């Protein structure tokens, strides 16, 4: 008696020696199944529904499953566990029994493809094609032919699939997906273009085509599609930027996209979304000059609020494109003086000039101390002052006022003006951040004026009021410094011990340095005279009295030449001389420290500073290199050795 395939497999299934997975295994495996298997499970569920239209019951009245479903599940399990031969045997029988069953057909085709039996897979599709000539089946056949290596035949079959319904967009969608399955991106691009002309819908597959072009490296085409998308709806600008942006890391993508968008803007310069896109691309290319032109145009098209220009100026300033940022800020102020963005623009313009001046090391005084032009600081001051005049009720007013005070104090050294301003901030805008900062700065001015008690009082009040925070820690450190200036070394030490315990604060390093200075340099007399002299020099430097500071240092060095502070005092002398612009004297002072105190912890640093002075002066390159080499020879383990090596290589033009 010939057993049917169904019998044969059921027997195998009931054989205990036959490899099997218990039913409980299946859902566990499903958790990790690839999509294809998950789809299979859905098909299986659908199939169960289709085949069990009438429930089957056994003698005990229990519901029985259709035997075909059991075999199909078994085949599916075999497929998942890689037992393709067993699965194919079962599926072939099932297909033979029910050739119209789509689930059997699909699974059998999948099984053939899994073992590269493409001929049989193709035959299966062809058998179906004999009944129904659909784009789906033809695409399937084309894909199988492609996998077989018959590329020409595959493409002819895809074309055949298109011709089943050449004016229906769905036809192209089916063929397109089939092409994507075998990564035929460039053919897919051509197909979608063909779809547009055949259906008479030029906007068809816009997003698909754009993405396809991007991943194929056809950046010009992609940009053109995105431009068209924007033309249809300018609300897509963010979407287009994010899509384009993800590919701009590719070296050709930016240049190609820029060229296309430039052309588009040339043809329609009044279309805002295109111009904004072009401006953004220019910024990505760090071409801030052209970007400014585009954002200027966008602002014009928008109706003149200055918002776009303001945003651009911020971006350009953050990138260090100072000139273009400045131009943009100025333009906002000139063209839109009454716009909501104007006050913030003015404040930001001043802040930008401050950053610009700091970057180039601008100084408003020459070496003899005479006031000279400092265009950026002057611009900043003018911008802030204009702000105060024009926007007296603006929320930024206290902050801008405080910034003017700092400018007067730190840059123009006009402590009188600064003090007046800080007092105004404290009185007029209490309980603001600007007022806290101003109170702190007032204490600093009191130190400069030699009013140490007043300074102490102000810092103390601030600490009591705020209790915690960076400003409080800084105030504590300054209080300790005041004690030191006044020769109250024990009090100073108690305070730095507190700060030293908070190692996370910014001032803790300064506190540790001060602590070491106090611990190591007391004596030899009961009044700690050398340390007092050194503290006086530090105070004089703080008060911007370089000559007094030098007098104190020189007195200390002549009276106590062998004291432990001598190397530090000489180093301080070098720093004061350099700050006063007496560079040659500063160089000599630094250079003699390693000769006089070769074991000092400052010796290598002094040599490094000396070399730095030489390297900043033209014509002394070789001397600078020699000084850095001396540092490397005499202090090979110095913390400055790496920097010295870098400087040597930079000076000799190594390009490393």
């Amino acid at each position, binding site marked *: 008696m010939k057993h049917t395939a169904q019998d044969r497999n059921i027997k195998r299934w009931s054989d205990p020696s036959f490899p099997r997975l218990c039913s409980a295994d299946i859902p566990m495996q499903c958790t990790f199944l*690839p999509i294809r298997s998950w789809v299979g499970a859905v098909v299986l569920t659908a199939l169960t529904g289709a085949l069990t239209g009438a429930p089957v019951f056994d003698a005990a009245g229990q519901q029985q499953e259709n035997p075909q479903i059991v075999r199909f599940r078994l085949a599916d399990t075999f497929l998942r566990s890689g037992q393709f031969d067993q699965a194919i045997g079962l599926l072939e029988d099932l297909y033979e029994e029910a050739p119209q069953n789509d689930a059997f057909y699909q699974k059998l085709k999948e099984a053939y*493809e899994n073992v590269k039996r493409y001929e049989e897979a193709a035959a299966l599709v062809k058998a179906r094609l004999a009944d129904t000539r659909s784009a789906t089946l033809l695409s399937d056949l084309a894909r199988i032919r492609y996998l077989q290596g018959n590329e020409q035949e595959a493409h002819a079959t895809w074309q055949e699939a298109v011709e089943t319904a050449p004016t229906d967009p769905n036809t192209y969608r089916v063929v397109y997906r089939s092409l994507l399955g075998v990564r035929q991106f460039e053919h897919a691009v051509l197909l979608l273009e063909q779809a547009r002309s055949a259906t008479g819908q030029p906007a068809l597959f816009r997003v698909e085509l754009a993405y396809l072009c991007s991943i194929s490296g056809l950046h010009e085409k992609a940009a053109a599609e995105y431009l068209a998308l924007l033309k249809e709806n300018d609300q897509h600008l963010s979407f287009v930027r994010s899509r384009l942006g993800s590919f701009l890391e590719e070296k050709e993508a930016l240049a190609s996209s820029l060229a296309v968008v430039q052309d588009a803007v040339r043809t329609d310069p009044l279309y805002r979304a295109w111009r904004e896109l072009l401006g953004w691309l220019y910024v990505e290319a760090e071409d801030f000059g052209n970007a400014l032109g585009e954002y200027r145009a966008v602002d014009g098209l928008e109706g003149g609020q200055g918002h776009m220009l303001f945003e651009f100026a911020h971006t350009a300033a953050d990138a260090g494109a100072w000139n273009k940022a400045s131009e943009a800020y100025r333009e906002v102020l000139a063209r839109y003086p009454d716009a909501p963005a104007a006050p913030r623009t003015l404040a930001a313009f001043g802040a930008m000039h401050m950053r610009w001046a700091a970057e180039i090391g601008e100084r408003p005084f020459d070496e003899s101390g005479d006031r000279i032009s400092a265009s950026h600081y002057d611009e900043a001051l003018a911008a802030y002052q204009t702000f105060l005049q024009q926007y007296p009720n603006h929320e930024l007013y206290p902050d801008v006022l405080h910034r003017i005070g700092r400018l007067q104090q730190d840059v123009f050294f006009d402590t009188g003006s600064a003090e007046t301003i800080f007092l105004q901030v404290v009185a007029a805008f209490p309980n603001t951040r600007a007022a806290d900062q101003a109170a702190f700065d007032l204490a600093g001015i009191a130190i400069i004026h030699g009013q140490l008690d007043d300074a102490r009082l102000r810092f103390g009040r601030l600490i009591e009021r705020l209790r915690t925070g960076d400003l409080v820690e800084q105030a504590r450190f300054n209080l300790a410094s005041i004690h030191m200036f006044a020769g109250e070394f024990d009090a100073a030490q108690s305070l730095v011990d507190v700060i030293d315990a908070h190692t996370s604060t910014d001032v803790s390093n300064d506190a540790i340095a001060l602590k070491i200075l106090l611990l190591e340099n007391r004596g030899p007399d009961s009044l700690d005279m050398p340390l007092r002299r050194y503290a006086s020099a530090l105070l004089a430097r703080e008060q911007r009295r370089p000559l007094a500071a030098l007098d104190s240092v020189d007195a200390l060095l002549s009276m106590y030449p062998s004291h432990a502070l001598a190397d530090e005092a000489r180093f301080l002398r070098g720093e004061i001389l350099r700050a006063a612009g007496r560079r040659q004297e500063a160089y000599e002072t630094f250079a003699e420290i390693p*000769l006089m105190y070769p074991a000092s912890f400052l010796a290598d640093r002094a040599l490094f500073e000396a070399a730095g002075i030489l390297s900043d002066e033209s014509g002394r390159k070789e001397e600078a290199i020699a000084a850095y080499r001396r540092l490397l020879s005499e202090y090979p383990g110095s913390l400055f050795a*790496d920097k010295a090596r870098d400087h040597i290589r930079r000076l000799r033009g190594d390009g490393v």
Partner: protein
Amino acid sequence: MSLRSIRFLFLAAVLSLATLSARAQDILIPMDIRQSNHLKAYGIVFWLLEQDETVDWLLNYRGGSFLASGFNGLEQELQVRGVYFERIDTGASARIIAEVESEEHNTAVVRLETAPNIAVYAPEQTLPWDDAVLLALEYAEVTYDMLYDDKILDGNLREYDWLHLHHEDFTGQYGKFLQYRNVPWYIEQQRDTEQMAARYGFRKASRLKLEVAQTIKEYVRQGGFLFAMCSGTDTYDIALAAHRTDIVPAEYDGDPVDPDALSRLDFDMTLAFENFTPVFHPAEYEHANIDSGPPPPALRNQAIDYFTLFEFSAKWDPVPTMLTQNHVATLKGFIGQTTNFRKAFVKPSVVVLAEAPNRDEVKYLHGNFGEGTFTFYAGHDPEDYQHYVGDPPTDLDLHKNSPGYRLILNNILFPAAKKKKQKT
């Protein structure tokens, strides 16, 4: 003349005399723990070879030190690059050579004569992970050229003595980074490879990479030196073994794995490994069972994960000795897509240079093929225990004495032992 000026003149005179006297001396570059910058020391040796100077590599002497004659400007260059050195007179250097060459010690002298031409196999595309050899070469200031599939297939390899492979996937599965398939760098990498494959007449990336692997193998057979790290090691052999089958899942090449792939693997074609089984699951970040993977969780801790170098006879086995020169014998472990090789799959003809103790795992191995040699070093970055995609590159200024990086640089000097062509 002021006292200060006299002091400066005196100092200058002392410095000049010191420089003059140094010229008559030899320079010893110790490579033991006294060395301040081991990695730059290799660069200095390479620089000397480029100046047509010879250098003696004192194997197993103070960590594999270098001895050079007092070449003009050498001391300054050593100082500038931060390399520790000792001036020794010619008598002392003769004594050192005699000691190193004596039969009493496991030491030997190898004369380095030619700066090797170095090629690094890497794409032009910037990928989001670092390449330990590129980092080492850049840091040590060793000159090299980068080449990729096209240049290798166009026959450019013959111009080089040394070829390095790093985090490469010769199986054509794009590193099995399936989870990144929608990320621009992955898309670009896949597109470029497919275009390159098409340019050379291959329908699949795996076939292109196989052709490249076979070209490299031929280069080694003819006398080239191959050094590979991380996945550049096992995927190289896997690709060679799979030359007559398809082991790439559909997710990477559009068609499924050959159902008979396992029986069609050809281990006669491989350099270092045999009898392994490729991993066919597309989402499993592993190419074959050659790699033992990261250490078990209990040991996956950089404080306790380490490997040890074998010691070889310097006089009888100079090549393995050169490759294992170091100032320590136990090195920190590090993980990569390929972390360690399972010993069971290493061919018997291969020399194991370093292993993970008590784990039957090999970290570093070496072998000969034809006239050339190959060296495989598992793991990604010796100073970044687990280097993830997108992590910043390691700053070697913070690892100047890295024993793990030294092993890489030993490889670049090993071809320098080749004799100069004699003028006839």
